[in-house]
């Protein structure tokens, strides 16, 4: 039995590299068959808002996130409070091929896991 893993994605894209390097770590876990579940919380919910970063010469993190379901990462949560505080509706925060779930109580989700990776 290996550990269950939650990836906690807390940072907005582009301002720092936490979001990008978090995604890379999640994909690496999935490639090793250690498929994490993913919680977008705090400014991390902005990662799921459609983006167009050409003018700042970055790759679209939003587009790269769409790869998650293809790698078997299908349990994806969004903190409801975080989305609401930022004026975002669930319909604006979507991943193709994944059933993104709104979460009211992040604390009780977190404690279900053995390990939590923070990004």
């Amino acid at each position, binding site marked *: 039995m290996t550990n269950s893993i939650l990836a906690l994605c807390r940072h907005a894209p582009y301002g720092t590299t936490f979001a990008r390097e978090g995604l*890379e770590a999640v994909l*690496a*876990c999935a490639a*090793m068959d*250690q498929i994490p579940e993913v919680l977008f919380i705090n400014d991390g919910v902005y990662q799921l808002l459609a983006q167009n970063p050409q003018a700042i010469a970055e790759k679209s993190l939003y587009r790269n996130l769409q790869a998650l379901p293809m790698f078997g990462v299908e349990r994806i949560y969004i903190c409801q409070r975080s989305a609401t505080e930022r004026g975002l509706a669930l319909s604006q925060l979507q991943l193709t091929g994944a059933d993104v779930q709104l979460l009211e109580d992040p604390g009780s989700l977190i404690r279900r896991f053995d390990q939590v*990776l*923070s990004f």
Partner: protein
Amino acid sequence: MQFTLVVYGAPHSAQGAGTALRFAKAVLASGHSIFRVFFYGDGIHNGSALATPPQDEQDLLRQWQALQQSHQLDLTVCIAAAQRRGVLSESEANRLERPAANLADGFTLAGLGQLAEATALSDRLVSFGG
């Protein structure tokens, strides 16, 4: 118990680098073992052989190296994060045609699979922010 430490902080930039070292010592002093220390994000700068702090500031590199020697620690630097930020082994420097290598002795470059494995297999994982 087996601990894995994930270090995001660069020395002489964020305190997390020093905190991780102190925590590692406390883990070992408590009789537990360290499965791996994984340096990610800016934390990869902990593996730079060129960092030269002033005499009156702590030298984290030498302390990590001493700990590595005395406890055969696995000090893994994420290769992708390190390439971007300019910490290279001899073989990486050759492969990428860069003019020099600067990965410190005692540290190993490896992929994110090492983080996945450590997360899956160690009893506890503690992250040290940047």
